[in-house]
């Protein structure tokens, strides 16, 4: 068995080392899994495809950031909420609703070429995401209904709503009855920042937002408020912080950002609204936020790491005929190991055997 001895001070070395240990453990587990499921294949080759290949080819490399951008934006919003102990677990729903609303603007103005179109779509995405999350905020503030359950239930609702829209008002009239919207025209598409790839302006927006959030949390009173509300709710009350305000702000911020990410996905890589919009990014962003230790700058890195598991994972799927779910397994394992390794920061872990020797 194991015994935990609390450290007097959090171990600074372990703050840096524990994510690395978690990564190594995940890689080792992946190795064991591959040895079991793949016959006659050199596992080192699989590892190369998974971890190195995305960096060797400019298309794969750009895809890394195409996938990281939405994760960054959603993960950023979630990390702010999680800090305050507000669990917006249904970001997927806000993401989908944001995509629908933004696309609705694009479809409505499909014959208009204008520079204001894209900003308008972005605003629609943000506002609708905010609105969707505000349902949970309202119910939590007014009736103390748990926001985890409300946001989650609403994410299922959002997916049905998307399907209803794509077979109704937003369906392409000349699309042979496929449940897809019209293709967006040029002024409704996100500008590409790397010629020849799908890498769009969303990445730049994501990075700017991360720094704004970092600054906001560090310098602004609100940052203090959410931090204390999460770690010491009683102290927050004594300090006169308004609990309800924290709930509203964090859910509006995370909902708005998820909505923006949804619109970026429709106006970016997809170029239209499709049933494929709910891509699980809203849930994966939860992992991104935790891997970043809920830090806005950390989100920049953890989102790329998770994107690597997507891009490398896709290559492995194609090369070795593996299902998509393999990526999800690794992401889940990574989060398990990461959470587990954090024990090393606050505690010394000692096996019972060694205790007997030291006594």
């Amino acid at each position, binding site marked *: 068995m*194991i015994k*935990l001895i*609390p450290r007097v001070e959090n171990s600074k070395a372990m703050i840096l080392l524990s994510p690395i240990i978690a990564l190594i453990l995940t890689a080792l587990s992946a190795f064991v899994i591959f040895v079991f499921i793949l016959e006659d294949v050199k596992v080192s080759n699989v590892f190369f495809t998974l971890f190195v290949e995305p960096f060797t080819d400019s298309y794969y490399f750009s895809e890394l950031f195409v996938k990281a951008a939405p994760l960054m934006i959603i993960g950023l919003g979630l990390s702010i909420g999680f800090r305050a102990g507000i*669990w917006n*677990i249904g970001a997927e729903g806000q993401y989908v609703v944001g995509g629908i609303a933004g696309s609705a603007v694009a479809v409505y103005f499909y014959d208009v070429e204008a520079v204001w179109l894209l900003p308008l779509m972005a605003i629609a995405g943000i506002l609708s995401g905010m609105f969707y999350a505000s349902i949970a905020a309202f*119910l939590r503030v007014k*009736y*103390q*209904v*748990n926001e*985890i*359950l*409300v946001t*989650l*239930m*609403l994410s*299922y*609702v959002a997916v*049905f*709503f998307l*399907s*209803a829209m794509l*077979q*109704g008002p937003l369906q392409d009239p000349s699309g042979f009855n496929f449940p897809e919207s019209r293709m967006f025209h040029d002024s409704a598409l996100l500008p590409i920042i790397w010629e020849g790839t799908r890498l769009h302006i969303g990445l730049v927006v994501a990075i700017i937002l991360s720094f704004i959030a970092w600054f906001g949390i560090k310098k602004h009173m609100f940052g203090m408020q959410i931090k204390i509300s999460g770690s010491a709710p009683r102290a927050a009350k004594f300090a006169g912080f308004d609990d309800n305000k924290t709930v509203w702000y964090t859910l509006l911020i995370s909902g708005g950002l998820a909505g923006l990410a949804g619109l970026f996905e429709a106006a970016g890589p997809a170029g239209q609204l499709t049933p494929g919009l709910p891509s699980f990014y809203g*849930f*994966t962003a*939860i*992992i991104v936020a*935790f891997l970043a230790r809920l830090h806005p700058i950390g989100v920049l890195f953890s989102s790329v790491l998770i994107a690597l598991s997507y891009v490398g994972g896709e290559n492995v799927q194609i090369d070795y005929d593996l*299902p*998509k*779910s*393999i*990526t*999800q*397994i690794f*992401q*889940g*394992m990574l*989060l*398990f190991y990461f*959470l*587990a390794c*954090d*024990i090393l920061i606050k*505690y010394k872990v000692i096996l019972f055997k060694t205790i007997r020797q030291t006594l």
Partner: protein
Amino acid sequence: MNEGLLIDIIIGISIASVPLIFAAIGELVVERSGVLNLGVEGMMIVGALLGFVVQFHTGNSYLAVLAAVFGGMVIASIFAFLTQFLLTNQVATGLALTLFGLGFSAFVGRAYTEETIQLIASSNIPLLSDIPLVGPLLFSYNPLVYLAFFMVYLVWWFLFKTKQGLILRAIGDNHDAAHAIGHNVIRYRLLAILFGGAMAGIGGAFLSLVQVPIWGEDMTAGRGWIALGLVVFSSWQPFRVILGAILFGGITILQLHAQGFDIRISAQYLSMLPYLATIVILVSLRMGAKNKTNRTMPNCLGRIFHSTT
């Protein structure tokens, strides 16, 4: 509306509520011990998969149900180890469990997506099931349906009529005090988490072994989360789980029948109803409550326990 249809609807509601009863009654015990496990959805889907796989290969329904119980417990033990020994955040760990369970079952289940199995047959209790009306309504269910209702009784009996149940509730309300008078907090919580896993596993298996003879990676469709909502709805009282599950099952079945009846609402909007209903039920419960704080909630729910002694 004819009698046959009515009987069909009532039977349908009972069957739709069973997976929720299993999953929610397990989670209720877990939460009574002071632990919040958000991995119910993940444990259910693993149970659904293992039940299906074992039924497919052996054709033995008993083994299939046991496999689902076992699978739910194994995956719950990951959560138990992390939260009880490595003191991880329960919300995050539960979410990880759900994400992992969904991924794992989709991965393993890939080989079975085109297969079908023999469903577990209904029991048709001799003589009693032949009584008109009462027979089909009460005595012609699958054995697992009776087990679900029996488990609710058993949990109630355990929590409120046994010494161990009292200790478990005490641990959930004040783990420090319970520890101080010599109770093993961690052991009780471990067993509670494993029980929660077993029940979620059976609940999932009910979907793949009784409701539909196929495996699909999204077959739980949020029922694990709805079960979590039912525990809140029940105010942590076992028998109220049944009430909540029947309410939810009723909405599920009615929307299915409405889709059959050419009502002019598209299927997508009707399919939203069970999820919206869960929210409405949670809200209406709080609207009726007199005081703001939920008094029946176990005090230590979600709090980390670590003894230095």
